[in-house]
């Protein structure tokens, strides 16, 4: 028990060392995703994947919403309907994915915050990025929104767009 605890502290200390590259504090990515309320005969909450792309770098999955509480991991069967996510990253991951996957969410606006170097969010070097949001709904449609942004490492960057069927307003703000 004691040994485990020491190991935990050591790992945390190493992690902190990685994040504290400079004295100016952490990068924060705030994300807002609207799941529209749809008037359809059969409604299922959408599967949603959010990932970050940078040219020449491996895409990083930030978040995946799926039916994570079904018996026998049955909910993973429809992850492939998030076609681009599945191709880009999903098929190489195992689910549930620690710190990345969570349950599907109801219609409404969902806010998420990620800290660079923490959990699924990498610490970003300056450059051009694209945040991709893909939603797919059982007996429904699929929609993918790309939010390109440039991060210069210090000043705040924002991007926003609006989906036309499976996604509503989406926006991001990155700052340090």
């Amino acid at each position, binding site marked *: 028990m004691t040994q485990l605890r020491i190991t935990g502290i050591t790992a945390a200390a190493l992690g902190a060392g990685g994040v504290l590259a400079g004295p100016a504090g952490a990068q924060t990515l705030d994300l807002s995703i609207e799941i529209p309320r749809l008037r359809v005969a059969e409604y299922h909450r959408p599967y949603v994947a959010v990932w970050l792309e940078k040219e020449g770098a491996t895409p990083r999955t930030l978040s995946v919403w799926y039916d994570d509480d079904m018996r*026998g*991991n*049955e909910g*993973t*069967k*429809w*992850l*492939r309907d998030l*076609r*681009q996510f*599945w*191709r880009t990253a*999903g*098929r*190489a991951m195992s689910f549930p994915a620690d710190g990345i996957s969570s349950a599907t969410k109801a219609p409404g606006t969902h806010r998420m915050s990620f800290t660079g170097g923490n959990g699924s969010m990498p610490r970003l070097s300056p450059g051009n990025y694209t945040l991709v949001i893909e939603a797919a709904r059982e007996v429904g449609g699929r929609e993918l929104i790309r939010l390109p942004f440039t991060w210069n490492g210090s000043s705040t960057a924002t991007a926003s767009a609006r989906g036309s069927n499976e996604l509503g307003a989406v926006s991001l703000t990155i700052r340090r």
Partner: protein
Amino acid sequence: MLKSLRRPVIALAAIAALAVPAAVQAHRVWMIASSTVLSGDEAWVTIDAAVGNELFYFDHVALRGDFAVTAPDGSAVEVQNEHTGRLRTTFDAHLEQQGTYRVAMVREGAMGSYMLNGERQRLPRGLKAAEVADALPEGATDVQVIENNIRTELYVTLGQPSETVFTPTGKGIELVPVTHPNDLYAGEEATFLFLLNGEPAANIDVLVVPGGSRYRDNQGQMDLTTDAEGKVRITWPEAGRYWIELDHGGRGGAPSEDGGPRSRAAYTATFEVLPL
């Protein structure tokens, strides 16, 4: 009256057989899977297999034969719930490993004829190439044999695509992915390498036909040819299922270089192209 009619009918039939273009005779052999890209810990797929003209409709006869499903680790997956109806065969496979599976029907054999006592006789149907010598009676002359290797395949991937099922056997026409056949998207170019008896299948015609022809006025086919390395590049105009055919030697077979039997090798497969 009847007798006098019979002669011209036979004559006409003979002429018709010569005149009918190959495309009309060539029924297409195909299989389709319920899904080709799957996620989860395990999954089921169901496969339809048929012979017909239109893709992919059941308009002629069921495809019969030995269907083999190969798992990513090379082991055989049980073919379950097989049923052959008039117009199609259907069966299921339970995928329990992550990776790419091959569903295949390979027909290998020999057909041909020989002269005996001044008459041309056919070799029995369903003969293996190794059985030809035993099947020839004493005194047979002018033996004409075509050895066939005809593959009908499709591929299904659970999770991450793998390439173990594409290890060539060196027999017939085989696909070696450059682009994985379960990673095809509309508007993108895919490259496939084909082997003929283990060597690059250079300069072979590749026919690519999109499914759904019932709802179109034209076939929309692409006539391509493999390059000197046996590679063909295909840009998928839209999402859907595509049928691919390569045929070396055709019905008459290709002459062998060492004076042995003529040979025919054919490959057909169904690929699924997803919207980007």
